[in-house]
């Protein structure tokens, strides 16, 4: 089978599975549609910004939750709110959903609940990052082999 077609098929299957597993939602597809000749790396660039943002916010949350003299839940919530926003903008559905739960624990000032959510955020973020990097690698392989990236509807 033609290498390009094989790669394209892999890409479609992989992309579909990411959506099916709820890792990505329609917003990610919206971003892919915005990518064009003027900005061929748009999605990768947005994803990179998101990864940086995520890491910074995760660190902030962790530090705030570790404060022995009393957790500033407002501060934690502010970071979670920001993460919820960016994950929503990039289509990182599972990360976003954890943030929603996380905010309830912040509101309830429940440290244990918050810590559990933080672990979940870290888990979902790592998963997303790995999967997106795989997806981007596949894209690169298709382009290198002279093909075009399939548009998933």
């Amino acid at each position: 089978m033609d290498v390009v077609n094989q790669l394209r098929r892999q890409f479609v299957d992989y992309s579909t599975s990411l959506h099916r597993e709820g890792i990505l939602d329609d917003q990610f597809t919206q971003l892919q549609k915005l990518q064009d000749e003027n900005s061929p790396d748009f999605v990768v660039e947005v994803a990179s910004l998101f990864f940086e943002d995520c890491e910074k916010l995760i660190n902030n949350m962790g530090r705030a939750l570790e404060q022995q003299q009393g957790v500033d839940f407002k501060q934690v919530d502010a970071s979670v709110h920001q993460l919820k926003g960016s994950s929503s903008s990039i289509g990182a559905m599972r990360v976003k959903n954890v943030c929603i739960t996380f905010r309830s624990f912040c509101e309830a000032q429940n440290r244990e609940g918050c810590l559990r959510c933080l672990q979940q955020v870290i888990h979902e973020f790592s998963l997303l990052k790995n999967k997106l990097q795989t997806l981007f690698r596949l894209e690169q392989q298709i382009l290198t082999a002279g093909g075009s990236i399939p548009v998933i509807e």
Partner: protein
Amino acid sequence: MVVAGEVLQSGSSQELHVLAVDDSYVDRKVIEKLLKISSCQVTAVESGARALQFLGLDGEKGSVGFNGLKVNLIMTDYSMPGMTGYELLKKIKRSAAFREIPVVIMSSENILTRIDSCLEEGAEEFLVKPVKLSDIKRLMEDCVTRGETEEQEGRRVHKRKLEDDNLNSSSSSPLSSSPSTTASFGCDISIPELLSSPPHPSKRAKLHDGD
């Protein structure tokens, strides 16, 4: 009186110059792309303070930014550290030089009182994030149409778009995917006073009874 439509017809070129304000890197990048794809010139800044600086509201006169382009539309996030989008909106609407520039508020939170406050202060629209290309397209159309409508009817029409808070749903499909913004309401309306024609500018609202 300068109407929104006139303000939006940029003198030098067909392109609108939009000032986008958002503290999130990710969101700035996305909104910038959405606007560029819609043939707008974009200046994206990270805070209300920077926005005012760009407009020259922190001292100098005129809505000409650093690159000499007049600002035709301001799109700002609501929740920002320091100055919120709401505070920025108020400052702009209370300034003689800039009050006619349409201001659109963007927020990830679908809170009725928040939406109402923004519209009361003169926001053109309240968009629920994540903002999509269809939102931008509709915005472009609405602002131009509104300019014409105002000329004809001498009255402002405010519209808003709401999205379901996707707490329980697995997709973030918008409430309205139809192009019409003044069409029939697809959900329960239980706030009749918002639909009547009060002496001050009337609002037409699509409401989701979620609060």
